[in-house]
């Protein structure tokens, strides 16, 4: 119904960037996205710092949560990358929880989701790409380029295969960033659309109360779904980073 001419559902303005922190933020182009990044970082650090303050032998709830976060990412690193994975643990941890907390914060109404910006996710995926390539070059030197030549292929096919391998290697930047960005954006567009339905139908008279209620129910379900997507996408980003790092360390 919103697609008809005078659309009053503005599902995209929620992604518009605005300066945050008043005049100072305005002068340095500090946006509300950056404010949410700070919030996510502070929450991650607070969870670790406050959670681990008791240093208890038998952990309490918050400490158990902090330890679980640590051990989840640690096992992800060691299982995917191997025993060298410990070296990459801090960066994978930061990526995972930066994205996870960013996604979670975004689910709250009136809070901005910085992972719904392609520029941000592209920066993150480019960082991962550069890191992975740097690790591979540092580990294997020029031998790294043999990664693009699959073993046991006919010489005739080699140029084609190398081309395909290079493209697939480069496309990691795009797939990693677009996956996260598109998932977060789509979810928030859906939330906005069904939220608008609730308001518009609810205000349109007694006849529309039922569909309005239905939209509300859908929105509640969508928020649960968004929590799932938020976790899943952060996990996918982290696990793919680990897999890429594994390739970089072991070259297949």
């Amino acid at each position, binding site marked *: 119904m919103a697609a008809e001419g005078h659309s009053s559902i503005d599902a995209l303005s929620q992604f518009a*960037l605005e300066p945050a922190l008043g005049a100072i933020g305005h002068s340095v182009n500090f946006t509300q996205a950056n404010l949410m990044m700070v919030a996510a970082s502070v929450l991650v650090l607070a969870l670790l710092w406050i959670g681990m303050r008791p240093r208890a*032998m038998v952990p309490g709830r918050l400490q158990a949560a902090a330890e679980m976060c640590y051990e989840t990412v640690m096992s992800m690193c060691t299982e995917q990358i191997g025993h060298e994975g410990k070296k990459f643990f801090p960066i994978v941890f930061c990526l995972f929880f930066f994205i996870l907390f960013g996604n979670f914060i975004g689910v709250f109404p009136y809070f901005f989701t910085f992972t719904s910006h392609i*520029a941000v996710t592209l920066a993150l995926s480019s960082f991962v790409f550069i890191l992975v390539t740097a690790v591979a070059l540092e580990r294997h030197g020029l031998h790294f380029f043999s990664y693009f030549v699959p073993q046991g292929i006919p010489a005739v096919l080699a140029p084609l295969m190398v081309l395909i391998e290079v493209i697939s290697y480069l496309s990691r930047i795009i797939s990693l960033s677009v996956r996260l960005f598109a998932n977060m954006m789509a979810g928030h567009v859906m939330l906005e659309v069904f939220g608008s339905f609730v308001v518009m139908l609810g205000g349109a008279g007694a006849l529309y109360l039922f569909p309005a209620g239905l939209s509300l129910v859908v929105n509640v379900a969508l928020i649960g779904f968004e929590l799932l997507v938020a976790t899943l996408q952060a996990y996918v980003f982290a696990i793919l980073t680990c897999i890429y790092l594994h390739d970089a360390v072991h070259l297949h």
Partner: protein
Amino acid sequence: MLPAAAMAEGMPQMDFKNPLTISQVVWGAIIFIVLYILASRFALPKVGAVLEERAAHIARDLEAAQASKVKADAGSAEAIAAVAKARAEAQAAINAALESAKDAAATQAATLNARLEKQLADAETQIAGARAQAMGALRQVATETAATVVTRLTGRAPDQQRLDGAIGAALTARGVG
């Protein structure tokens, strides 16, 4: 739900003319680097230290438990050995006591037997003596009786030598000679 064209022109994410789109990335990089430094230098090592300490503590406790178990096993083996030894000793003592009691009984029985045997022999000797005496007396009685009878019947004393011979033959024939 949303026309593609509207999406393309309306997407704030694609509005790269807005300086904020790029500035958020720059600020994001700074924030992420700060997060990385704080997490990797301070927060994560703290968690790691606690986890390591706990793992070490558990390993230590397990080791101590293992050592205690070994000690307890050794003690239990020792106790079992001691019980077995005590039982063997007791059995040996019982056997020895039984043996000595049996020996004593056997000796006692032997002496008793010997005494009885001796008494029996004595008695038999006495009987034999008495019998011999009686038999000796019998010959005398028989000789005298025969002499008397012969004297009465014939009126004269029989020949001593013949009489003795006849008496001896008669006694021998009856098995008492």
